[in-house]
């Protein structure tokens, strides 16, 4: 760890304590869990833009993805939470690392001032939008909310049945379209990566005798 990042990680620990304490004080165990996941999400993002080594930035996304999955669990959407881990951590992050690991560990890739000013602009913008929306939005809270349809069986029926149990049309067309899109993407990637005829021919050797 370079000396410049000591204060940053100290600030991160303080942030963790603040979030955990705040959550604990607001809603006991659930709040504690919320604070933990909020810290993972925000802290992962902060490390991602702070760290000058690309690989560390990529690894910090592990915390962000896991934190978001935790939020899904708190919202009762277990299936999406597990899918988030399976797809983002197991798939996308592994692929990302595969690419990023092949870059040399150059510590001077990113200028700190640029990172900080970017963080400031984006943060201020997000804060402004959040204040605007939070102040003017009229949140409707229905006390008789339907139970969250997060059980695997309900999701499977929703995706594959023409009609849902309550008579609404199902999502089978959208599901099948997504499947076709993915197949097209797979075939296209194989087509792009495949060996062309010109690749198979022996390249002409320079300098005469082979």
């Amino acid at each position: 760890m370079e000396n410049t990042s000591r204060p940053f990680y100290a600030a991160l620990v303080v942030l963790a304590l603040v979030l955990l304490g705040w959550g604990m004080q607001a809603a006991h165990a659930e709040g504690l869990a919320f604070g933990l996941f909020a810290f993972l999400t925000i802290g992962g993002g902060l490390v991602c833009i702070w760290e000058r080594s690309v690989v560390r930035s990529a690894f910090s996304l592990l915390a962000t993805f896991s934190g978001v999955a935790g939020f899904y669990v708190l919202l009762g959407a277990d299936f999406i939470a597990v899918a988030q881990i399976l797809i983002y951590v197991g798939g996308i992050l592994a692929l990302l690392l595969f690419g990023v690991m092949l870059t040399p560990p150059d510590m001077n890739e990113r200028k700190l001032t640029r990172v900080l000013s970017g963080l400031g602009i984006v943060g201020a913008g997000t804060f402004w939008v959040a204040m605007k929306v939070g102040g003017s939005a009229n949140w409707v809270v229905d006390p008789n909310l339907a139970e969250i349809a997060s059980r695997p069986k309900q999701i499977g029926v929703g995706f594959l049945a023409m009609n849902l149990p309550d008579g609404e049309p199902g999502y089978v067309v959208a599901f099948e379209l997504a499947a076709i899109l993915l197949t097209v993407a797979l075939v296209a990637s194989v087509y792009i990566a495949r060996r062309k005829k010109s690749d198979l021919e022996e390249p002409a050797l320079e300098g005469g005798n082979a």
Partner: protein
Amino acid sequence: MESGNLFLKLLSDLAPEGAPGWVLALMACGVGVSILIGFVSLLAMAATWAERKVAGHIQCRFGPMYVGGWHGWAQPIADGVKLLMKEDMIPLGADRMLFVLAPAIVLGSIFGALVAMPLAPDVYFANLDLGIFLVLALSSMTTIGVVMAGWASNSKWSLYGAMREAAQVVAYEIPLGISLLVPLIVAGTFNLLEASEAQSGLWGMEWFIFWNPFMIPAAVIFGIAALAETKRAPFDLPEAESELVSGFLTEYSGIRWSFFFMEEYAAMFLMSLIGAVFFFGGFESPITHLAKYIGGEHSILHNLGGHVTLMSKAAFGVFLMMWLRWTLPRVRIDQVMTMGYKYLTPLALVCVLGACLWEALKAAF
């Protein structure tokens, strides 16, 4: 005795009078995690001893014989003490933070996956609707830890090992998941307890593997993919001691090194457990059936029978993995990739289609 989670019931008896729910939840977390850590440590100890004995007998020797007296039973304790006393070295060129973090991520994700593990019909940490889905998701997280270890070590052997691990696990996750779909079609649930319950017919011998002819190839594919996922020989390319020194483990020593081995044995056990639940009857066997008949459903005897049955099935799976390790030579990396993508994945898809057709026809007639 009524059914339900005995583990939580015991805890709520132990909790102070009138404690709020969140205190109980935190207590359950603490006790559950301690039990898991103890379980995994003991499992790793027993498995290292068993591995040496199995290796010894396959190679016509005895394996450990001296420490502790009977067949060297105390050898893993001596090993553990040695590992704890060893100097904890971090190479100068290593990325210290990631180097320290990697074993924690590897071990943490396998603990997360073990939460879904059922111990007996009424003893479990969490009865999750998403059981198997969660296990697969979290056990794929160990890859990130291994890649992290390989990169942080800043050594070419480690990096090679990490790259191989990433490529191998991404390749074999697909046939692993697809081959599990075959019993999942029959079971109709991700829940490990419900899947086990569904196989209780015929004196506890109505195992999924006998349900249709596509189960047997699916079980074989699952076994091969599980070996590759847990990076056991013949798929131990990320370590490959004769090519890469020790692969991603090269720069690790002492207790950090042993964390990776605890993860490996826990992952082996977990994969065997999944195989046992989704192909070989889970808790169900004639013994469990007899225990249920004598003691009644959800009695202590029934739980004991189920526990012994499942654990012996899983232990046999671990033994099978050891047997294969000391019998088969290591495959090359291109052979690993070819097998995963060109043979196992299409074969698993064919099995799923066949099983779907079979079950549809069985429902129709």
